């Protein structure tokens, strides 16, 4: 960046902003009087820290929707069938060295309680937990050989979020926003919608901007009510009162700017009030699910209490992406009660995964269908992931413990060839074995699809050009091949 003082880069980039814009907007015929549709369709040209930036090369996707299943999804029970588990059920896992589990001691091999069906033309096997997602098999590229570095929920979340298990690094969404800006200046560029039952393991650090300016952190959209904290004034303050205050503020700030012509930050700050006003008008509209047709609501499962919660999140994601939001991070599984409200199936994998898959299957399939129908799927990357896989051996006969040695992740959209599997775990699903894919590789691939070279997307910090992928990462060739 060419700014002499990097930390003050945001609005000065626009340069030469004047108070004229807001003054005009606040006039009787301006912003305050305009209807939502015209306010939100109109993207102001400058003043925002999220102005669109050029990618390194032609992108395959303009936006990302990340579906994060918090708690740890068992790959052997979802997208990575292991017939050997049937054959060797009840026997110890035949490996040398210590089998490290998160809780207690290792148990014997346990077959999946779920059956698998082949779907679509590709015949991609998907477990009975996901009949609806299975119907999209020909759109999914399943990576069966992803490895993580920690069997601790929080550190594993941080690794998927930022490439490192330690706190303090920017998340993927922050990197993407930093690299590409946003297509819509009236909404945050990086939006997080977590489960109504509570945030994921590790909390807000998952969408932190780390050492980058705070502007790049994820903005939490609430799944109901006003999407953003402090988006609207409390009910005690009427619309007319707020308008009067904004007008006075604008007048006084403008006088102040005239007295201090040297300070461009002041103009930037005036402009930020205009953006805030736009956001106030546009964000509720962006998540106004009531405007959707009954058919669409049904498609996402909003008509059913089991699927309604995640359905709302998925439908919000589509509406946000449609409006140019760059990165939407959804979490399923919230820390109300770790064992029942997340995928953390220590006690009973059949009960746990049956419950959680039923909550997400229809909404995720609905999302894929809807994106496809609207022509958005080809320019949107959908990533389905979790913080680690689970163990092929049982925990107390019915459950499965954490396993960062192998997990399955799928990607769809962005013109990725569907119906393929990439990499493989070993016979039992204990360790990834063929074409091992690290989290850095995943991140490199996500950036690649967005038109960015992960080795060139750097942020200068403490004397180093930092990268999302540190000094590692290779783009997954099968995903990169259109």
């Amino acid at each position, binding site marked *: 960046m060419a700014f002499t003082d990097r930390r003050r880069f945001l609005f000065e980039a626009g340069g030469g902003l004047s108070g004229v814009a807001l003054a005009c907007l606040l006039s009787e015929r301006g912003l305050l009087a305009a209807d939502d549709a015209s306010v939100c369709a109109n993207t102001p040209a400058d003043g925002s820290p999220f102005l669109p930036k050029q990618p390194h090369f032609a992108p395959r996707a303009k936006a990302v929707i990340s579906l994060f299943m918090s708690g740890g999804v068992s790959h052997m029970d979802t997208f990575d069938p292991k017939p050997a588990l049937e054959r060797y059920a009840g026997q110890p896992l*035949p490996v040398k060295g210590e089998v490290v589990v998160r809780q207690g001691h290792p*148990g014997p091999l346990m077959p999946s309680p779920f059956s698998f069906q082949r779907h679509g033309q590709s015949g991609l096997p998907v477990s009975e937990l996901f009949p609806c997602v299975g119907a999209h098999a020909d759109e999914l590229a399943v990576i069966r050989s992803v490895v993580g570095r920690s069997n601790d929920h929080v550190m594993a979340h941080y690794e998927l979020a930022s490439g490192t298990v330690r706190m303090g690094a920017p998340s993927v969404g922050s990197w993407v926003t930093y690299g590409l800006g946003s297509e819509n200046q009236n909404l*945050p560029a990086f939006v997080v919608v977590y489960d109504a039952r509570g945030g994921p393991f590790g909390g807000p650090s998952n969408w932190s901007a780390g050492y980058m300016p705070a*502007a790049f952190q994820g903005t939490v959209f609430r799944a109901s009510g006003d999407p953003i904290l402090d988006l609207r004034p409390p009910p005690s*303050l009427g619309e007319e009162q707020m308008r009067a*205050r904004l007008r*006075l503020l604008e007048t006084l700030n403008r006088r102040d700017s005239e007295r201090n012509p040297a300070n461009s930050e002041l103009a930037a700050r005036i402009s930020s009030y205009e*953006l805030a006003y736009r956001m106030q008008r546009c964000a509720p509209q962006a998540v106004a699910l009531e405007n959707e047709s009954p058919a669409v609501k049904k498609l996402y499962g909003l008509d059913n209490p089991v699927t309604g919660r995640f359905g709302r999140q998925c439908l919000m994601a589509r509406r946000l992406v449609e409006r140019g939001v760059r990165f939407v991070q959804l979490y399923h599984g919230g820390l109300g009660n770790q064992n029942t409200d997340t995928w953390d199936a220590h006690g009973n994998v059949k009960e746990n995964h049956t419950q959680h898959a039923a909550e997400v299957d229809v909404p995720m399939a609905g999302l894929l269908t809807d994106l496809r129908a609207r022509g958005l799927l080809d320019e949107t990357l959908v990533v389905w992931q979790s913080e680690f896989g689970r163990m092929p051996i049982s925990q107390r006969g019915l459950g499965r413990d954490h396993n960062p040695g192998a997990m399955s992740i799928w990607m769809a959209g962005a013109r990725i060839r569907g119906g393929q599997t990439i990499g493989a775990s070993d016979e039992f699903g204990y360790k990834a074995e063929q074409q*091992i894919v690290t989290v850095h590789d995943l991140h490199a691939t996500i950036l690649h699809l967005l038109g960015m070279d992960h080795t060139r997307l750097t942020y200068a910090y403490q004397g180093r050009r930092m990268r999302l992928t540190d000094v590692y990462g290779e783009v997954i060739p099968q995903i990169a091949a259109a």
Partner: protein
Amino acid sequence: MSIRAKTHGLLLAAATMGALGAQTPGVSFERDVKPVLEARCLKCHGVKMQLGKLDLRTRESAVAGGAHGPALVPGDAQASRLYRHVAGLEKPLMPMGGKLAASEVAVLRDWLAQGAPWSGALAEVEARKEPEPEDRTIAPEARQWWSFRPLRRQEPPKNGDAQWDAHPVDAFLFAKWREQGLRHAPEADRGTLVRRAYLDLTGLPPPPEQVREFLADRAPDAWERLIDRLLATPQYGERWGRHWLDVARYADSNGYEHDFDRPNAWRYRDYVIEAFNRDTPYDVLLREQIAGDEMEPASNARLIATGFLRNYAKVGFREKDNPQFRFDYLDDMIATLGRGVLGLTVQCARCHDHKFDPIPQRDYYALQASLWGYVEVDHPLAPKPEADAYAAAMAAVEAKLKPLREELQMLEAPYARQVREKKYRAWPKHIQEAVFTPEEKRTPGQVLLANQIIRTTGASPSEMEPLMTPADLAARRALAARIAVLDKQRPAPIPVAMGITDGDYRFTPDGAGDEPAPGKGVQREAVEGAFLCDGTRPYEAPPSYFLHHGDMDSRGRPMRPGFVQVATYSEMPVEMPPPHHRTSGRRTALANWLVARDNPLTARVMVNRIWHHHFGRGIVATLDNFGKTGEPPTHPELLDWLSRRFLDDGWSMKRMHKLLMSSRAYRLASGFSDPENEQRDAANLFGWRFRAQRLEAEVVRDAILAVAGSLNPAMGGPPVFPPLPEETLKSMDKGIWRRQPDGPETWRRSVYVYRKRGLPFPFFEVFDLPDQNITCGRRNVSTVPTQALTLLHNEFVIAQAGRLAARVMAEAGPSPEAQLERAYWLALGRPPEAGERAAGLSFLASQPLAGLTHVLLNLNEFVYLR
């Protein structure tokens, strides 16, 4: 067929199907394999070192393998790590920093498949000429970089301008302006200056009366007296202590999964505030924070100060069986000392020699050795007799409890067995079978399953009691009652400080909140030892090692403590054991080196920090990086002059504030503009006008509270928890956020608000609170719409605007003119100008006063120091 053989069969089949290339006919070990191994593998797995404990010099040692298992499985390339790592089937790709040619990979694969015939022992080709990494020194010319050179003796330039030569700081700046052809701004008006001084030194806007008093004080020394007065207020420590707490990555919780509360962390925060208020010399401040536990005489403050090193984010697993985390904590300490104190990114040398600065990896591990003995302890904050009495009373209660607990267990045992059996029968059939099959007849799988079930099945009193005979029941309850009585006899806890001292982490007692390693028991190399040294024998730090590639399994030689060579100008002891011999004195030696007069960095870095916070930009803009990738100093001579002055003034920070603020340069106007200046130095690197600065997150909140008349000035003590929206509380993973009402109890200065690593306080976060987990000298400043939303809509802000309106009403009476006047004085420390008066009065004609005060809190002028 055993499962093992079966697995291999499948793997081989997979390999064949995978079309991994045609066979190389007739591979010769001597001709094809040996050269590859010798040239590409033996450097790290040979005579000099065996990274990952792997030695590839002989077939036996290769088969035996290293820390991760055998490297070579004759006849099975796919199972051989040697092949997997060079073929990229497993990470990291070997050899490190290079890649074998496809033909070489094929040779290795085929040789392995052919049974890996071998002859003789290998020898590394090309003897290494460089010294071993543990011995690496720096070249003399490495010291030529400006920040590594000794502080120069420097006289302020003589510009022949009486006004600007009078103050040394001005003389240096003026010379630069002249050299660069820059015109300097005029002096700011006195109203601006008094506000600047208040916000800068105390983080609070000046009360109107203080502004008026200063405006009326036309004595020549009025400004100096104002500075003295502000430096003497306790709010100074709350403001400037906060700057240091950023460096110290201070927080009130652990971070990571549990984000446990640190109930005593605040004592360190209070120590810092008090140290700044007392003007504790910076060298003493560093000594106390790094080695307070080794200083004589011992004091509570010194023990509390050691919390500095313990402010790292912490995973809940015990270090004694998860040593990898300990390396990360040490890395964080080294990063904090490096960047925070030395302005050097020493932590970059953890895995390799520093890429840009002359910091060999050896220096990193020498520093690590200096700190290696540290253990986390809660220092009792009581005189020794009292602490001893407490420990004795606790032990006495425990001694009485022990036999009672044993008796209780004996009595309960048969009933517990019954309860557990009943629970076993509730499991599905295959689990019951595993549990009820006699131990010796269980299959290997059943052994594992039964083990899991039996270990995790307990029996609670409420489950056992219904089964008990009346006599046993009565006995059980009597025992339980006696235990309960004894439990209450524990002495009241004495206050403790969260700090560190030397010890042996491998013998850390199991503490609250610690978790054993995932799936592991205690693992340690030493079998005998003690957590803390009682001084009967001199303390000896556990050994620490050079780690190749930073990998804890790739040990080099044991390390001696030591320092960063490039910043070392005289022979200094690396260990200064205290007379009591309970610690090593390595940290004392480290602190002594940091504050040695010939250490070229420590004074420069701190003076530059102080300069940055006063002027908005450091003489070196990268406060934490004085290395080659940092920004060069704009005024190197001035920095050296100031640094020497800092040393000569006994490291006094208050004197430095006074010196900088009494310059004319500090008093320049910020609104000044000049077309030619904008051409020559648009970024104002040379300080020709004062740099306006957005207030920091905490100052925005404190200023709102102060002008509303709400600020509760109470100092110190446990942190407060301003209310958070329910939705935000929901996003929180674990740990605490107490529910305190919005009121005077939480209307304390922001430095006292609970710092939760996993959940930054939203109001602060929106105003660029830095990440609380890493040391930070210079905060980012951004201007984003969410800041506007917060100041416009946040209930706290609206409520305080209402309180400000009520205050104005009470102080100014019913007249709108008087109200407007008073509101301006309170919020901005000045009267409204004519245009502002007109706009304000017209607003008040139709809108409530609270609307006006709300607008004032949103003004650019309110949130900027200028």
